[in-house]
């Protein structure tokens, strides 16, 4: 998949100016509210027009202002899933699902309703009016509706933002199915790092209409301009771990060459998964502490201290970069500086279990 985007559009607050080539199956677009993320998707889908620009998907030019090419949205074959599911309220679930399906030539259909209904487990909902569904059900139907229009690519605009945490974690596996089993590339807008990392590590960071960074998350997140943005919603570190054994309330996992006690999870020994921990849930110590209830102490070396507003984000290399949020006073009192050793203290229950590593 190759998606070439060169888009310029003057918005009331700023100028959107994007020039990127996306080649990964899933590219996440990350940025604060009002950064132009939704506008960008609208420009790609054809629902809005750029002032000038060029959009090409796998050699097919969808928009080119200099040649006057402007495919209408219905001819672009891009599935759009919105934050609000936007099911047609006057149609049943079944009719919603078939809305796009029936617009595709039979020879060009990539999926049959039965296949998608099974994948998303929405069979029991088919006869219901769309208003009678719960949030998670609605979003699954919206996803199914988009898939059945046989899109060449999915554009997803914060599809989980209006769902609570429990529902989010139930929908994400379906998105992973779409990505891995159906092989449909996705442009995924979100302002949740944790959510993005469930799907991809390829991130495009947008701020005030400009691309701040584009690439692998581990590289992008270390960009001094990106770090403050990540912190805006509570920066969540993501660490890859491997489960060694599980007992009653907690599991022991290996993170690099250090050990972590993580919340109990019913997964076999040897499973590799991501765990998340928020930057302000970590306590920093200069000496190995004694007599604390905290189970986890990761040793590492301070690599960077970034000033973000009234706080400081300290990056510690514990085998993986770990960002810890502290006050400027703490930096002064502990005389924190790059190159010094430090211990990161993390309560077991501050660790959030993330997805398994593919």
């Amino acid at each position, binding site marked *: 998949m190759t998606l070439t985007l060169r888009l310029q559009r003057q918005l009331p607050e700023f100028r959107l100016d994007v020039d990127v080539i996306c080649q990964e199956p899933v590219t996440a677009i990350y940025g604060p509210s009002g950064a132009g993320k939704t506008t960008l998707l609208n420009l790609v*889908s*054809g*629902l809005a027009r750029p002032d000038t620009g060029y959009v090409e998907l796998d050699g097919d030019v969808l928009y080119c202002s200099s040649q006057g090419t402007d495919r*209408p*949205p*219905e001819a*672009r*074959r*891009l*599935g*759009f899933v*919105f934050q*609000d599911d*936007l099911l*047609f*309220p*006057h149609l049943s679930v079944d009719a919603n699902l078939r*809305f*796009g399906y029936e*617009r*595709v030539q039979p020879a060009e259909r990539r999926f049959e309703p039965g296949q998608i209904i099974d994948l998303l487990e929405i069979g029991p909902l088919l006869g219901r009016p769309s*208003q009678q569904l719960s949030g998670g059900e609605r979003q699954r139907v919206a996803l199914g*509706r*988009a898939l059945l*229009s046989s899109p060449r690519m999915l*554009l997803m605009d914060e599809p989980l933002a209006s769902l609570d945490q429990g529902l989010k974690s139930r929908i994400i596996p379906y998105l992973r199915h779409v990505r891995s089993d159906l092989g449909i590339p996705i442009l995924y807008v979100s302002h949740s790092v944790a959510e993005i990392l469930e799907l991809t590590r390829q991130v495009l960071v947008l701020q005030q209409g400009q691309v701040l960074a584009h690439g692998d998350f581990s590289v992008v997140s270390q960009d001094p301009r990106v770090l403050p943005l990540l912190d805006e919603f509570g920066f969540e570190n993501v660490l890859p771990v491997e489960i060694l054994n599980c007992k009653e309330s907690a599991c022991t996992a290996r993170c690099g060459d250090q050990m972590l006690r993580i919340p109990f999870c019913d997964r076999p020994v040897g499973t590799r998964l991501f765990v998340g921990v928020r930057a302000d849930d970590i306590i920093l110590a200069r000496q190995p502490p004694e007599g604390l209830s905290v189970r986890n102490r990761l040793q590492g070396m301070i690599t960077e201290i970034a000033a973000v507003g009234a706080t400081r984000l300290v990056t510690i290399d514990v085998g993986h970069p770990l960002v810890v949020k502290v006050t400027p006073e703490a930096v002064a009192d502990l005389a924190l500086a790059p190159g010094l050793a430090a211990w990161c203290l993390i309560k077991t229950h501050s660790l959030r279990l993330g997805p398994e590593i593919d």
Partner: protein
Amino acid sequence: MEILSPAEWEVLGLSLRVALASVTLTLPVAVGVGWLLARCDFRGKLLVDGLCHLPLVLPPVVTGYLLLLAFGRRGWLGPVLESLGIRLAFDWKGAVLASAVVAFPLSLRAVRLAIEHVDPRLEGVARTLGAGAWRVFFTVTLPLAAPGLWVGALLAFARSLGEFGATITFVANISGQTRTIPAAIYTYLNQPAGEAAALRLVWISIGLSLAALVGSEWAARRSRNRQATP
């Protein structure tokens, strides 16, 4: 005893025919113009909006006289229509046109409001699912605006039943052709011993108008309920 005399039945039948035809004529135009005003921005939109609402505030006599100037036998368009075999002046079709023009702003307001309340993002999502602009209009916009269309149709129907000033100015008061309920009531009141007949038509008029208003209020509530659900 008969409820209504044959002449009164004729008046009632003609009134219903004129009102139904007027709705049929005015509603498609209201839907088109309503969509234009609700969804498009163009130069002179305020002017178009104002012109469309003019019949609501103009004295009906003025509307009727303008119609006479335009469509009368010696009007601007009269000869053209005549050559096509269409006669409006002093004909029931003229009564339909007069009613339709006067009822138009009422139905336009209702239809425009209904279309404005349809979430444009639903239309957008339908486009990305492969439906062209016309298909989106007929399969998404119109069905979602349907309760508002009913409101517009019923208001136009009620207004057409009550149309008097423009009709009598444009097509006069000809028995069996243009004598609708209001014109008949006016005629009976000017006849000796016509009061009983007039009163019967007054009751019918009240009944029909009330039914149409109750119907439109019911449709308006359905429309609000539909928009209230997520």
